[in-house]
């Protein structure tokens, strides 16, 4: 049976959230649309002491090879896709994650290769007409997600709500399985 995600309990999440927001608000002026933001200098995020401490507990502190910020506006679901280049992502809720979901799917149609508008990163897009939802988790707490499986993010909050922001820590994890 495919396992898609694992909830992870960490300490000091509220402090980490505030410190991430402090950096994020300084780096970019506004986020108004759904996009993944890849900071030029992700060390600043990865050197937040409370985050470092939690990553050390998991043995991940030296094994994060890429960091992103996923901003999802209320309303329209993000496209169903799978990520490329890694299997696991450790995602932390930063803001507005209540009443939002990460949904996982099976697809009967192969995906199409596409690139993100903002960063040009490659991903694989799935046509929702050929997808069946198989699992779902809310992102009000940190999760390790198997992002090599088809998935999307839905922000069910009403228009005008806070943007949903998550910190994405891509794990350099090739030795085996995390679930």
């Amino acid at each position, binding site marked *: 049976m495919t396992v898609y995600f694992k909830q992870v309990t960490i300490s000091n999440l509220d402090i980490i959230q505030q410190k991430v927001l402090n950096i994020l608000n300084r780096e970019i002026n506004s986020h108004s649309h759904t996009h993944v933001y890849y900071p030029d200098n992700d060390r600043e995020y990865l050197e937040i002491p409370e985050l470092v401490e939690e990553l050390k507990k998991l*043995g991940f502190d030296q094994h994060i090879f890429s960091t992103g910020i996923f901003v999802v506006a209320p309303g329209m679901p993000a496209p169903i896709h799978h990520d490329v280049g890694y299997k696991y992502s450790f995602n932390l809720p930063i803001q507005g994650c209540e009443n939002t979901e990460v949904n996982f799917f099976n697809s009967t149609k192969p995906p199409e290769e596409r690139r993100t508008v903002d960063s040009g990163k490659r991903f694989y897009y799935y046509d929702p007409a050929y997808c069946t939802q198989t699992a779902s988790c809310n992102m009000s707490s940190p999760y390790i997600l198997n992002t090599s499986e088809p998935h999307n993010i839905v922000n069910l909050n009403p228009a005008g709500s806070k943007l949903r922001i998550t910190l994405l820590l891509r794990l350099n994890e090739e030795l085996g399985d995390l679930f």
Partner: protein
Amino acid sequence: MNYINYVDFPPVPENLLLSPEEILALPRIPSVTNKDFFQLRPANDDLINWCWENITGVPFKFRAQYQIIGYGIPIHRDQALPNGEPRTLAFNYLLDCGGSNVATRIHDDDYTIVETEIIKPLRWHSIKVDMLHSVVGLVPGRFRIALSLAPTGI
């Protein structure tokens, strides 16, 4: 229950082992990752044959090889064997610990640490690798080098 245990295999004769510098100079052989934090190097025939002749009690067909770890191993559960069965045990013999406080840790399914062991060098030991496990505390720039009995021919 201990998930990391010393096992009663005979110590490897020193003359069969290469120095850490000589091991690091050997060519890499394929492993589950091409990243530098986990590398394999071939053992020579004399060492492989010694292991086959002198080590009994390993519950799988094995081949000896050198394992090199740089800056630690993240939490993971070992990949299944080529025949699809889970890999339950690893058998290693540390030649260079990579530091005096390098810890091998076993985690439960919620990633909570349930066992921590600073494994002694030159002692055969087993690790239950179908449990989540990690290695932390390497001195930056140093490698942790072990002779490892890897499953083969299944």
